[in-house]
């Protein structure tokens, strides 16, 4: 049992997967000698050599496009995008090829490919380094989209993503890179993709979130509890495929739900979850499913990010609203 950070969980998970399977390779900008700007690939090049862990030139379409080629060959590439906002140049390769290759080959060729993306705000970064881009990918059929919020999930989910036969967009909530947890490595009993985690049981309101906002939601749930409100907190983890059953089971119990995410509210994945809950179990709802999310504006400069990011007060406000609807 060791206390590790989420970043270390990822690093150890990569190491584990690379040890298990010689076909796993890591590439991206600065992932080699430097170990990545967040050190997620730290020391991997020394351990596995330059043919397993290597720098790419500075070009993201190139990173994803060549990873697709490697996957066609039979490798299992793990590609790093340096930051969320620098994923966009790779959009065509992700949407037009990674997501579609299985379909366009009539199932003959699948792409076991992981695209790692440090994502989200809250770290005081400059522009383009704080984007919550999950909705672009959750709307893209053919991709799996997952995000861990704890060190042990980080380990087990990255290993799972690498072993998955399909392309996985792996979102790493960068403001949680440094959270710690006591973990016994390797974590081999991680839940399969498509399974949410109930982080806290409760019966009055279901709070639904993932990755970056989990901490805020935990604190909000705690504060609600101290006010006598019983909140059930769900960590979605796997956005696609979505574990709607866990969500519906909770809402059936509570009759109320609030979804929390950083991304801009309009067209965010919260709307999807809200719509799904309504479609699937309208009659259980005592109140509308509410969303607490970023405002409909570009992610603001660091000094103003606090007003953009959902915080405890905004979450509790929404909890109050659904309770007193």
């Amino acid at each position: 049992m060791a206390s590790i950070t989420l970043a270390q969980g990822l690093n150890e998970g990569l190491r584990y997967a690379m040890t298990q399977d010689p076909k796993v390779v890591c590439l991206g900008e600065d992932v080699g000698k430097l170990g990545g700007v967040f050190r997620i690939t730290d020391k991997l090049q020394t351990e596995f050599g330059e043919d397993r862990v290597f720098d790419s030139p500075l070009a993201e379409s190139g990173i994803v496009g060549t990873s697709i080629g490697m996957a066609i060959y039979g490798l299992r590439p793990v590609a790093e995008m340096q930051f969320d906002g620098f994923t966009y140049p790779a959009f065509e390769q992700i949407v037009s090829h990674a997501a579609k290759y299985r379909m366009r080959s009539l199932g003959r060729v699948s792409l076991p490919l992981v695209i790692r993306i440090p994502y989200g705000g809250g770290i005081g970064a400059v522009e383009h380094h704080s984007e919550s881009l999950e909705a672009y990918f959750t709307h893209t059929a053919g991709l799996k989209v997952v995000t861990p919020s704890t060190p042990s999930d980080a380990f087990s989910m990255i290993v799972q993503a690498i072993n998955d036969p399909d392309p996985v967009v792996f979102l790493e909530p960068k403001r949680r890179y440094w959270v710690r947890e006591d973990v016994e490595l390797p974590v081999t009993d991680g839940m399969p993709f498509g399974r949410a985690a109930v982080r806290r049981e409760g019966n009055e309101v279901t709070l639904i979130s993932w990755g970056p906002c989990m901490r805020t939601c935990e604190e909000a749930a705690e504060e609600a509890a101290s006010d006598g409100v019983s909140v059930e907190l769900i960590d979605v983890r796997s956005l696609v495929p979505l574990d709607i059953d866990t969500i519906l089971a909770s809402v059936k119990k509570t009759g109320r739900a609030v979804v929390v995410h950083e991304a801009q509210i309009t067209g965010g994945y919260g709307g999807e979850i809200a719509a799904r809950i309504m479609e699937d179990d309208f009659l259980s709802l005592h109140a509308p499913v509410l969303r607490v999310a970023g405002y409909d504006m570009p992610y603001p400069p660091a000094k103003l990010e606090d007003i953009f990011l959902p915080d405890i007060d905004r979450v509790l406000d929404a909890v109050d609203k659904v309770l007193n609807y």
Partner: protein
Amino acid sequence: MRGVVDPASISTEMIQMLAPDGSFVGDGDFEIDLKEEDLRQIYRHMVLARRADQEGTNLQRQGELGVYTPLLGQEAAQVGSAYALSERDWIFPSYRELAVAMYRGIDPSSVMHLFRGTVHGGDWDAREHRFAYYSVPIATQMLHAVGFARAAQIEKSNIVAITYFGDGATSEGDFHEACNYGGVWKVPVVFFCQNNQYAISVPLSKQTAAPTISAKALGYGMPGYRVDGNDVLAVYAVARETIRRAREGGGPSLIEAVTFRRGPHSTADDPTRYRTKEELAAWEAKDPIARFQTYCKNEGVLDDDFIKSCDDEGAQIATNIRASIVGAGPRPAIDLFNNVYEEMPETLRREYKQYEEEQSAREGDE
């Protein structure tokens, strides 16, 4: 001038072995190692491709294909380069490489099915034929080739990748990233540009100001070759050299095969809007098959019987394509649902169930 490079200094000469009239001119820098049987096979592949291609256009005109992108005029570029590959090498095509596909043993109907709209990437097994799926988003397949070659390099497999693309493709960011990655990683890849002078309506002069497309190789630290793309011998010779170097660890090359798309961009296109009859006629005079036929006849390699056997084989292929395509219905819908992920996720399963229920309801209605 010290420290200055000047595009005007780049020569626009081409490597050529056969003059348009079929006479052998040769190129001292390249040897030809082809046996008589090779020459006949090259001729045969060009003829078959042209006939199958014609059938694509015919089928589209008859409403059996949604659209078709003819290769007419580009047979030498395609067959010449493909002939230089070894069987284990991989091919990453765009959407016009019917001759290459057929050379690799792919049934041309599998290509036509794509244009009919029954399948997306093409109905062949990429691994069996070592021929990746057609790629419509321009230049994207070039990166796949580079990644594949990087994997071949990592795995020390001796396999070379070749990727086909057009003159227009050289403008896309992906062309650049592919060439640059290829150069830096020094992977076994050949970038094969069919410069057919147009990207739909846009002529090369509005596509790039480069003196030649092959000159672009300099920016990636690899050699660039400019070859007469209607001269199958020259194309073969250049391809062979670049493939051999790639296989020996010498890294990538860029080949510019100068040719012409004599048909429309696709059957939906109207080339009279942007090019002249004279231009077309000038290129018809440089026909790659006629030229090679003359050469082979002069060399005593081709006789009328063989020529006729190729034509007959072509006719048979056309008949087969037609049989496979005409009236072909859609594939079963379940294939769609099955091929999004390896395992159908819950949400999609529900959608499929819903789809099935609707289907039965409809059938009930009828």
